[in-house]
């Protein structure tokens, strides 16, 4: 993990015990191809929950 990804974490501060995404994970968040696939997956999941709720 790059040092840049850890810049907000301070030892024994309130955010010391949580997960922090690495640079690859953060890139995926705005990677258009990957996000287009996730768009389809999330929509399917939402449609299922919406269907169960009506």
């Amino acid at each position: 993990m790059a040092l840049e990804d850890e810049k907000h974490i301070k030892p024994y501060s309130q955010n010391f015990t949580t997960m922090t995404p690495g640079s690859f994970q953060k890139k995926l968040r705005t990677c258009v191809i990957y996000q287009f696939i996730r768009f389809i997956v999330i929509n399917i999941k939402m449609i299922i929950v919406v269907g169960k709720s009506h």
Partner: protein
Amino acid sequence: MARLVVLGGGVSGHTAATFAAKWLGSSHEVVVVTPNSKWNWIPSNIWVGVGEMSKEDVTFELAPVYAKAGITYKQAKAVSLNPEGDLTNDSPFVTIEYTQEGRAGEVENITYDYIINATGPKLNFGATPGLGNGSELGEYTVSVCTAEHAVHASQKLQKCIEKMRNGERQKFLVGTGHGMCTCQGAAFEYIFNIEHELNKAGVRHMADIKWISNESFLGDFGIGGMHMKSMGFAVSSKIFAESLFTERGVDWIIGAHVSKVEEGVVHYELLDGTIGTENFDFSMLIPPFAGVGLKSYAKDGSDITDVIFAPNGFMKVDAKYDAGAYENWRASDWPSTYQNPTYTNMFACGIAFAPPHAISKPMSSPSGTPINPTPPRTGMPSGIMGKAVAHSICDLILKGEDAPLQHASMADMGAACVASAGKGIFTGTAAAMTIYPVVPDFEKYPGTGRDVDYTFGEIGLAGHWIKHILHHLFLYKAKLKPGWTLIPE
């Protein structure tokens, strides 16, 4: 000919009125009473509040839409209910006061056969000294609860950005303005949209951003948090939220009751009894909600407000209001038909119904100050219950008084929620989430209280695309354009 009066034209009221008008046809009358001339898609106020959308992008005029639907529209606020009529009139009626230009202050009684209370909340800024006066926003903080508030917030934000460009460091404080607030999600969206905009403006390094809320843990959101399936684990929303706050460099104060707001400083009390202050240059604090203050009178004129409404001003429905301590709470406490138990031709939906209790575990400070989120009843559940109530009333009118009522308990329904964390067609992100059910059912799902197969969340550009599409889709639906009934709530 029967008359259905719908009080309120928000998500729940508008859904109920438009479906009722469609199902009842022209043989019966649907009347909508709402003080606003415009409909507002409130979830997009976040983007108005950072200058990414205009007020016109999130609102439209109600009158032409209701004219097209055959709905009688009265721009007025409801003042009181007489469910038994009065000494001169046996028919139940609602007293309204016009807010329409040219008729402001004019009072009228409207008789009804059925009534739906979907008035939404009173934004109770006055509950916290300095946050505002009654339902009026104060001078020290901003709000994104209405489109007008969001425009004001955006103007203030732009001034802060200018100051940062000129080398002046700014402190941003966003969250809840009282120990009993709900709608943490809106504040969550706003703080990350601010962070995103400051990055875009190139001034993020000049800003300190802090979250303050009444949640006992980050990611509670008024629903007691949730567990999502991820990498083979059932991961708490606490981890999810803390991770995002850490990644974006946002500090947090939780378990906080904001007790007073002054110019540039917030006073708070924490669950552990700590008393503290936090300075700010820019602050958006969500106010607590209350009922709109409708009164109710019996036939002889005696005040029966406490029969119909809970002490917080929300209307009593078919909920279990005597559940007692947290350990006794059950999913079945939650209402499913939204029918008033005393007057069966009265229903309430959306924020206007009185919940049986909170969803998050109730907590208080050592001095006894209650500090816990109140339950959210907005968005998808609000629309679903509005449609269910309209369906029930249409059945009662068209099939007779023995027709069975529709059920739409928040303990049996799920919700899809998209929380924006920044706007941009290629740079935006949002947390896309579903939960099932909204109210956890620990008897059916021991442990997490929810079905983790249908409860998930992830952040990314896809979520932003969905949020943006939903913005246009729900405005399209609310304008009753062709095929509007095919779009789910």
